[in-house]
Structure formats: structure tokens, C-alpha cells
């Protein structure tokens, strides 16, 4: 035990030289601006009931297409309703729809995709086929079917409809990532020490699959906010109350565009900034957590 007894100490010397902690990755100012915007939107929408806002549904608060000004920061729409108040109340619907739909997609598609990618075989065949059907079915028609088959298009129905659409893309991403990592030797190593499948899925695979899924989720919220707008154009969005999609629809009739462009412009602008922030933050999150596999 001469030479080998030295080895530990020597290695420690070498380890201290490793500069890895000296380099902190940074998310960048853009990420924090995006986050600040998203936080602002979420907080305002949450606080909408207690904020001193005009009644979003009250007709005739201002004159038809009254321009933005002191009485209404964002002006008034064709019925004289306060656009500022409606944008904020509408954000509640749009954000909730986006969020619930993505969570539904993650909760259903994520585990299914991971199981398909890990167990392969018949599990994979069944799950992949289901995803394929969901993806091949024209999204719009699927949405039409679901939305039309219920009596009232409540917030929950619209959110879950969009959630069904999110299952397959999220699931396929989870499956693809799981397959990549399941082939890695650390998964075999876990099996060799006696870890059960559930433990391998949750401890070894989930942390690796979660980051790309999280980035996709942020992106997904953005896509779904836009999708709600799409449903609104078909007259299939939430029946009660304002949503960004419905406001844009109402504001983009030829008459409104000519006489009161602000009615469509404000919700479009807010939606644009929100979607941009979500996309940007999603990208940055993915980059940030992209582990280097080796330092050397």
C-alpha cells in the first residue's frame, strides 16, 4: 500500500484545480425581463377582482370606439366597454386556459410518453399509436367536436379541450427523451443495484426528461393562448366574459379596425408580449439546464 495510498490525496489536489464553479452560467437580462412581464400579468390578473377596475361587461361606459385617454387607458370598444378592464379580465381566461391545458398535457402525456419510452414493447406500441391518432386527427375538428358536444362552453371545457390537444406533443417529447436516456448506462447501473422500475423512472429518468418538458411547457402555454384566440374566431371560446381571443375577434371587424383600431391592438399587443416572454423564457430555461456532460 505505498503507491495506492497516495492516490486519494493526489486526486484531491487535482480536484481543487477544477475551475467549474468559477464559471456561473447566467440566464441573461432578457430572461428576467420576460419573467418580470409574466409575473406582472399573472399578478394583475389574479388581483383583478380587488383592483379598482371598471366593470368589463358594462355597456356604455364610454362612447363607441372612444380613443385611449384619461377615462379609459386603452379606450372603449364598439359597445362602449372599457378595453383596459376587459384586457385584464380577459387575461384571467387566457392564462387559465393556457396553464390548465398545458398541465393536463404534462400530467397525462408526460407519464404515458415516459412509460412508452422506458418499457418499449407493447406499451410503446399502444401509447405511440394513441399519440399518432391524436396527432393525425385535425386539431381543429377535434376541438370542434369536443366543444360542440357539451352544453355550455365553460372555461373548464375549453381548457380541457386544448389540454387533449397538448397530450400528444408533450407525450412524444417525453417518449423521445426517455428513449435517449434509457439507453444510457446509468439506467442499467440503477437496475444492477436493484432499483425497481418506478424508482428508475422517477429518480433517474424524470430529472433528465423534466427540463426539456418544462421548456416545452412554457412554449406550450404560449401556443395555447394563441389557440384560444383561434377558437374564439370560430365562435367556440368560453361563452361568458371577455377573453383575449374574443376581444381580438371583436376588434378586427372591418368597421372596428377602421374606427377603433385600439380595440384589437391592445389585446394583440399584450398577447404578443406575453407569448414572446413565454417563448424566450422557455428557451433560456432549456439552455440554462443543458448540462455539460463533461467538464474536460
Amino acid at each position: 500500500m505505498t503507491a495506492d495510498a497516495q492516490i486519494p490525496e493526489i486526486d484531491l489536489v487535482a480536484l481543487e484545480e477544477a475551475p467549474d464553479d468559477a464559471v456561473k452560467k447566467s440566464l441573461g437580462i432578457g430572461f428576467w425581463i420576460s419573467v418580470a412581464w409574466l409575473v406582472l400579468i399573472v399578478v394583475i390578473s389574479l388581483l383583478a377582482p380587488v383592483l379598482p377596475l371598471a366593470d368589463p361587461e358594462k355597456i356604455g361606459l364610454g362612447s363607441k370606439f372612444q380613443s385611449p385617454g384619461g377615462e379609459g387607458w386603452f379606450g372603449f370598444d364598439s359597445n362602449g366597454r372599457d378595453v383596459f378592464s376587459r384586457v385584464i379580465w380577459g387575461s384571467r381566461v387566457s392564462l387559465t386556459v393556457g396553464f390548465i391545458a398545458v398541465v393536463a398535457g404534462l400530467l397525462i402525456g408526460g407519464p404515458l410518453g415516459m412509460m412508452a419510452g422506458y418499457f418499449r414493447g407493447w406499451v410503446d406500441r399502444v401509447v405511440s399509436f394513441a399519440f399518432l391518432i391524436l396527432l393525425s386527427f385535425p386539431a381543429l375538428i377535434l376541438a370542434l367536436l369536443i366543444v360542440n358536444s357539451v352544453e355550455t362552453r365553460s372555461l373548464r371545457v375549453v381548457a380541457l379541450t386544448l389540454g387533449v390537444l397538448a397530450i400528444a406533443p408533450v407525450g412524444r417529447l417525453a417518449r423521445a427523451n426517455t428513449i435517449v436516456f434509457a439507453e444510457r448506462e446509468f439506467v442499467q447501473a440503477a437496475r444492477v443495484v436493484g432499483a425497481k422500475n418506478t424508482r428508475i423512472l422517477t429518480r433517474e429518468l424524470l430529472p433528465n426528461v423534466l427540463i426539456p418538458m418544462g421548456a416545452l411547457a412554457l412554449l406550450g402555454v404560449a401556443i395555447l393562448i394563441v389557440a384560444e384566440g383561434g377558437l374564439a374566431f370560430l365562435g367556440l371560446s368560453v361563452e361568458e366574459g371577455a377573453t383575449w381571443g374574443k376581444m381580438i375577434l371583436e376588434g378586427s371587424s372591418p368597421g372596428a379596425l377602421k374606427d377603433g383600431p385600439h380595440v384589437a391592438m391592445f389585446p394583440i399587443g399584450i398577447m404578443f408580449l406575453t407569448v414572446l416572454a413565454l417563448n424566450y423564457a422557455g428557451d433560456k430555461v432549456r439552455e440554462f439546464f443543458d448540462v455539460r456532460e463533461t467538464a474536460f
Partner: protein
Amino acid sequence: MSEPQLSVRDLTVRFPTTRGVVQALNGVNFDLEKGQMLGIVGESGSGKSVTAKTLMNLLPRTAEIEGDVIFEGRDVRKLAADGTQHFWGVEMTMVFQDPMTSLNPVKKCGEQIAETLRYHLGRTKKEAIEEAVDLLGQVGLPEPAKRVDQYPHELSGGLRQRVVIAMALACQPSLLIADEPTTAVDVTVQRHILNLLDRLREERGMSMILITHDLGVARGRCDDIAVMYAGRIVERSATETLFSDSRHPYTDALLRSIPRIDQPSHTRLEPIPGRPPELINPPVRCAYSPRCRFAQPDCLSAIPDVHGVRGMHEFACFHPANTDRGREALAANVAAGKTAAGLPIAGYAGGGG
């Protein structure tokens, strides 16, 4: 002595990265005589592949290169800056480790060789295919007329590497750089490939640079060997001198740490402690000093210049192994129980003589 065919002077390469500037090469110097075979040996990060890529003008644009590379009287870096065609791939050419990266998977082997001939030498399609068959025969591919119509994936790893070699030889290069040409193949195939390279070099009077991590591979084939460590050539000499009378402690320790087939089983190995150094912002000292059993205070304050007989046996070390200076250094360290860099040593017999 005539002008060397290739002469590399003070070659320095840096890569700016987000983690800092990587000092890939730190003043590399060597000459290559015509028809000679030089082995460049080193482990990952030693700079052996960066050297090859610099010669071949294959470094990414972000690389900062300094120093001179003179090939047959021409400034290679100037040729690169001028966008010269028909130099790389014609006069100077390279064979890579993984044949699949140099072959296009969706093109027939013959076509790929023929394309090289048509592009560089302006052959017609028919001439080029005929020459390709001839070349495949020369590199020992069985049934070359049939192989020209095969795709790379239809061939075994060994045959693919032969196709790559045929492609490299197509334009009669005078210098062939082989970067780990046999690392991806098995030993029985390795022997064939190395024999082939040897034969071709002799037949054509080519010079060759063989880059490898395997001292054994270099030993059997090269006239001279340059050992690289942390972006520098730390020792260079005729092959047998290097194995019988090494001077740099790294070479010495490396030779001792590798299991040998003629030793009985369970022979205790003498490992090199620690690990290869970081190349980002390296401190001013001998890069090997933290792992070196000979290290003295002077090794930690300056980078050793090249000592020895220029062009014969050069080494960058203040206290070379198998010399009195080295023996004194080792004796002092054994007496102190540790080296100047704090590496504990006890009962180390090697290198001191």
C-alpha cells in the same frame, strides 16, 4: 542537411470559449524530413489532433492561430488565408479516426473517390471511376471492381478505413496525416491498416504523420516520435531512443504505467497520479509538474525550454529522467517524502536510473 519538407515553428492555437481561453497549443516546433514517418503521441487534450487540424486548415474560424507552418517552401497559413484550392487533399491530406465521418453515407465508395479526382485533377467521369478501382485495389480491397458500387455501410470498419485511405491517396499527396487511423478498429485489422500505410509510404515516398494515443502503435512504425502534453511537445527523439532512454518524466512515467504483455499477470502497475491539466488559463509552470515525481521549485515558476540536441533528442524539462540532474531531483523528493508541488512520493524506483 536539406530543407525539411514540413517545418512548424512556435505554433500556438487558442480557442475563446465561454469558460475562458483554451490554450490548445503553446508553441509547437517540429520538422519533418521527406519520406519520414513522425509519430505524435499524447492523450486527449494534449494537442495532437489540434496540431493535425491546424496543418490541414480544419480549425473553426474562432481559433486564434500564431506561428509558422512551412511546407515545401510555402507558407501554409498564407495558403489558407488566400483560399488556395487543390492544396489540402492534393499535396497534404488526412485520414481520420472514424471512417464514417469522412465518407458520405448516401454515395457509393467509387463515386466518392472519383469526385476527389474530378475536382482536384479534372479527370473525366469515366477516367475517375477507373482510377478509383485501381486505387481500391492498391489499398488491398478485395474485388475492387465490385466495391466501387457499394455504399460505405455495406463494408466493414476495416474496409471502410481502406476506402478512406484510397481517397486520401487519390491525388498522390506528398504528406499524409493519419489521425488515430486504427483506434476504431480491432487489433487484427489494425495490423493490416498499419502495414498498408507503411507499404504505401515506401512505395510512394510519402511523408507521414501518425497521430495516436498508443505508444505501442507509434513504436512499431515511426522513425521519430514526438510526445505531447498540454499543448506542447515535451519530448522528441528517434523512436528507439525514446523507449530506451527517455528524458521527460512524463514519457518515462507513461512507459512505466502501461501494462506490458511480457510481464507476468498481477504485476503491480506504477500509475501516473492525478489527471491531465486544464487548458484554460494555465499557470506559468511546467504543465506536468503537479503529477511529476521529479518536480523541483524551479518547475513551478517557469515553463521549461527545449533542452537536448536539436533535431536529435529534444525535451522540455529542467530535471530530466535518466540524467544526474533528474536523479538528484528524485532523491531530494524521496528524502522529503513529497515533491515541490506537494505530491507525496515513496519508494518510487523509476526514472532515476
